[in-house]
């Protein structure tokens, strides 16, 4: 109870949660990078709990450490200090146990593998028998609507389709946790909205917890149960906002109608004010928009 965050109530509810139940539990996490110009405090005093099956977005301007936080959860980087557990285990153990699936901003498909072989890659690496692999890949490609492109190579697909392959790949082993670092960042607006709708459905279908890094306020609001607002230099959590959307009882209910609902706009406004509030703490008076955040 000693390390309470003075901002909002959601921080308090993380105190009471049994840590081992949570998908991700972060306590007093710090991350510093040694650079030529000195030590950079990428993350400072991060406390965050992501429940199993919960969809949490990390949003904030460039340099707020949201991607770094995701990389720490994925065990691609090591925290300088603090506690980080994934399903009650260390991040390294969770990675070795394949407890999460991951998708990056670039699709990151292997260009010499067909769509089907790309999706099969994690299954292949973990010794899944070829028959089981084939059915699983077929299911996944159907889920992302790319069945007829199974034999194509990545360079024959559009950016949106490549990203769908990457998402199918991240779901291949039915992970209980999905880590996504701006997976739709490079897509055009229309494809992006469609992918968001698909992702909400997929996350609801699989019951996986999702940690979703984004620049976009509407995207965060549309997808999430909670939006974590971060501020830069040093990277901190400035606010955690639960999404109260009318249709949000079941996440699978979220569809394009929600984008036009008034509750959606209220939430967008709340997140935007939280973002700007964090920015105006700085000395320059009231910047019009937090840098690096687009309000698409």
């Amino acid at each position, binding site marked *: 109870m000693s390390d309470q965050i003075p901002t909002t109530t959601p921080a308090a509810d993380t105190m009471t949660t049994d840590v081992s139940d949570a998908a991700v539990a972060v306590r007093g996490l710090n991350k510093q990078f040694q650079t030529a110009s000195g030590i950079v405090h990428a993350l400072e005093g991060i406390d965050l709990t992501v429940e199993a099956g919960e969809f949490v977005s990390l949003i904030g301007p460039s340099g707020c450490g949201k991607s770094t936080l995701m990389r720490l959860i994925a065990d691609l980087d090591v925290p300088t200090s603090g506690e980080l557990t994934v399903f009650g285990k260390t991040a390294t153990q969770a*990675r070795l146990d394949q407890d999460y699936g991951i998708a990056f901003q670039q699709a990151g498909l*292997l260009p010499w593998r067909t769509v089907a072989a790309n999706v099969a890659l994690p299954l292949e690496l973990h010794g899944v028998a070829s028959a089981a692999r084939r059915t699983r890949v077929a299911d996944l490609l159907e*889920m992302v609507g790319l069945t007829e492109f199974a034999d194509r190579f990545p*360079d024959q697909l*559009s950016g949106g389709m490549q990203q769908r392959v990457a998402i199918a790949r991240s779901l291949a082993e039915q992970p209980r946790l999905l880590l996504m670092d701006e997976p739709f960042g490079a897509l055009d607006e229309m494809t992006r909205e469609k992918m968001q709708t698909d992702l909400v459905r997929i996350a609801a279908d699989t019951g996986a917890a999702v940690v979703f890094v984004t620049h976009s306020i509407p995207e965060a609001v549309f997808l999430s149960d909670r939006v974590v607002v971060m501020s830069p230099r040093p990277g901190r959590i400035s606010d955690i906002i639960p999404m109260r959307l009318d249709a949000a009882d079941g996440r699978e209910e979220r569809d394009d109608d929600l984008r036009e609902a008034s509750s959606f706009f209220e939430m967008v406004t709340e997140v935007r004010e939280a973002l700007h509030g964090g920015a105006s703490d700085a000395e320059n008076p009231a910047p019009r928009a937090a840098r690096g955040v687009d309000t698409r």
Partner: protein
Amino acid sequence: MTATRNDQRGEVAVRPASSPGAVAKPARTRLLGGFLWGIAGVALIALIWEGYKFFGPDNGVLIGELRVLPRTTDLAMPHLWDMMTRLAEPVTRADGALPLWAVVALASLMTLGIAAAGWAVGVIVGVVFALLMQRWRLAEFGLLPWIVISQTVPLIAFAPIVKSWGSRVEIGSFEWQDWMSVALIASYLAFFPITVGALKGLQSPDRIHVELFDTYAAGYWPTLVRLRLPAAVPYLLPALRLGAANAVIGAVVAEVSTGLQGGIGRLLIQFAGQASGDPSKAWGPIFGAIVLGLVTAGSVALLGIILKDYRRTEEAA
């Protein structure tokens, strides 16, 4: 299924050229075009040769004492058709002598075999070096300078040494053969571009791919087999081609400097010595060496066709 609703939008972005029928036709035209350009190039060289021979002065073109263009006598520049007919004639006037082309072909085959052995050793050594250097930064710092320096040693300097050392090697029933010295020297030239190319290729995977394999908890070997080696193919193929060319050059030069009989290198020297009496004959082994180079380059190109799936990024660029 919500996923299928907007799929048409995605399909529009698919390159129309990806249907097999559409690809085949331009590819065939390109192949034919390349073939015709090749013939045109050879024809141009033949034309320049015969043209200069016809119009050029007998004593060549001189600037002061310096001859900048060769003599055009039949001794210095035989007619192309003389070279060709000479190929069909027997190599010597002795009874039952093989035609020149057959002698050249046999010698080329022997050199090809030696060069191939040298190339194979060069590939193994080169890839092993590259694997070591990719795995351990320290190995890269420690080895790479020496590998570069190794190529500055003139081939002719150590060819006799290799031969004399080799002649002392005798392990059980295994006895070092002279051709092995030549193959070893060929491999010495071949391994260098392969080492450099393979190292660059093994280091080429994007950070995002390496991290992806990390998230799959894939160890060194699965990452090597499924990521690093496939990614190295576009770098490895030109390196293998360069290595093959080097192996042929190394084999020919080593044959000459170790005095190995039966290969094309020996034949080049031998027939050049007879050029004053039979100028067209000296060109036989030269053509043989050219064909040898084309065959080795072609073999590696064939390898490139087999591995075409791994070269998709290369074609897109």
